[in-house]
């Protein structure tokens, strides 16, 4: 019996199980999801002189509000419209959520703790996260609803506009570091400086593009609840709706981890009292990602929603050229002219 438990613990703590399942994978993604939505509502409330969610566990300011919501979603009946295309309607949210969180497998937690190490792990992360919006389109089409269709088409316009500059910006950093291996990128940042200092333009551009691709304000155009109900997710209810709503937040979490690794020095520096343990680097990386997520969700309380043509013009006329310029900034930084 003891042997079985020991074997199970070994299996759980081995990186190729721990990373996809616990941290930074599924379980911590769920925990972050519950926390960050609460934080978003709380921040927006505070800026607007309200309280936000409060009455579920009042001592901690209603922090488990989202657990209550999740329970409600779990027990609510998922209604499937008669006219909807059943298979995409049911599997769309599941695949959307899965493809949003799946790229955590390629995110390393420290120099020697990762599910797999690859020369192109940056491309793996970006590539898998780019899959997710395609399911938004499928959902919007499959739910046979005009709002769903409009929302899906908006997503279609937006992904073409934001993913290309996002790849170019990330590749600018790859050019700067001379590698696409996320572990090596952190090693190089320890030798030189944080990426945000080496190429601030790329950092700012990537930050705005994160807002764009995770549909945070001011680019919350796909859902746009005051215009098209809930966009592609209009027809959903119950746990399927919970998955669709959570997907963009999980994507935000993944991209925040990526932002922390690309621009904020990853898991370095580990504070003295945590060094040597496996916990240290993970916590540092997590804290940096949380700061990025905080800034992202904070934008909700500052900005109104852009109209789609404004957002597309911003993406193609400003962000895309900026991402190209950031490639040149990377070259300039490489030659040492920048520093």
């Amino acid at each position, binding site marked *: 019996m003891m042997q079985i438990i020991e074997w199970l613990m070994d299996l759980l703590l081995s990186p190729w199980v721990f990373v996809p399942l616990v941290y930074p994978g599924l379980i911590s993604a769920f925990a972050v999801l519950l926390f960050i939505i609460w934080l978003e509502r709380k921040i927006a409330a505070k800026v607007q002189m309200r*309280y936000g969610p409060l009455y579920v566990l009042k001592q901690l300011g209603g922090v488990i509000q989202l657990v209550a919501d999740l329970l409600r979603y779990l027990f609510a009946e998922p209604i499937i419209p008669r006219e909807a295309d059943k298979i995409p309607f049911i599997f769309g949210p599941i695949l959307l959520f899965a493809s949003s969180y799946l790229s955590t497998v390629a995110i390393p937690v420290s120099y020697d703790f990762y599910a797999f190490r690859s020369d192109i792990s940056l491309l793996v992360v970006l590539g898998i996260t780019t899959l997710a919006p395609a399911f938004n389109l499928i959902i919007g089409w499959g739910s046979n609803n005009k709002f769903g269709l409009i929302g899906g088409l908006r997503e279609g316009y937006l992904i073409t506009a934001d993913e290309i500059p996002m790849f170019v910006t990330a590749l600018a950093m790859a050019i700067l570091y001379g590698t696409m291996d996320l572990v090596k990128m952190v090693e190089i940042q320890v030798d030189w400086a944080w990426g945000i200092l080496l190429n601030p333009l790329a950092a700012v551009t990537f930050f705005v593009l994160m807002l764009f691709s995770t549909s945070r304000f001011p680019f919350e155009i796909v859902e746009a609840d005051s215009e098209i109900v809930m966009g592609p997710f209009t027809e959903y209810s119950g746990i399927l709706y919970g998955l669709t709503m959570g997907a963009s937040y999980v994507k935000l979490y993944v991209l925040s981890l990526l932002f922390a690794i690309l621009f904020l020095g990853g898991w370095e520096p580990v504070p003295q009292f945590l060094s040597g343990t496996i916990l240290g680097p993970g916590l540092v990386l997590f804290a940096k990602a949380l700061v990025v997520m905080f800034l992202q969700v*904070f934008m909700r309380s500052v900005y109104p929603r852009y109209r789609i043509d404004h957002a597309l013009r911003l993406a193609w006329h400003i962000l895309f050229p900026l991402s190209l310029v950031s490639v040149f900034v990377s070259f300039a930084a490489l030659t040492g002219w920048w520093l």
Partner: protein
Amino acid sequence: MSKRESTASRLAGHLEAILTGFKYLFAEPRMTVRYPEEVIELPEGYRGMIIYHKERCISCSLCAMICPADAIKMHLERPPESGGESAGKAKPKRHPGINYTRCIFCGFCVDVCPAGALEFSDIHDAVYEEFEAMIYPPSEFEKGPPKQEFPKPPKRLRPKMDERRGIRYEPLD
């Protein structure tokens, strides 16, 4: 497009907006009044639910006539049979009853009442389990509006105009 702002000024605008957001993130106080725990002190002359003093009523029907929402209606009521001489001889009297599903709390009835039989209370929050319970015949009307019950004695607040935040709530005691 009539006038284009320069890129620098637009960037400055974005920065200013974000900084303003941060400023408000740490600013106190909040405007929410958490109702059953905190209650706003009502000003004098607040038009709440109406108290009816039946003994002062002269049955003039002015309140029913002026009511713009037709909430007040006069009910014909026989005085109680007292037996003896006057049994069966007393004239039936009219008394107002109120329908709170229609009442708009304009207060015309209180203003027009020549005998001062109608009066405002400061009660405005009542819960009814049935629609019919909101319709008060004179016999119910004279018992007054329902009592307010709080789980705990609420904190009383007074609204104050504030130059910077717009409105503020100060505790009364």
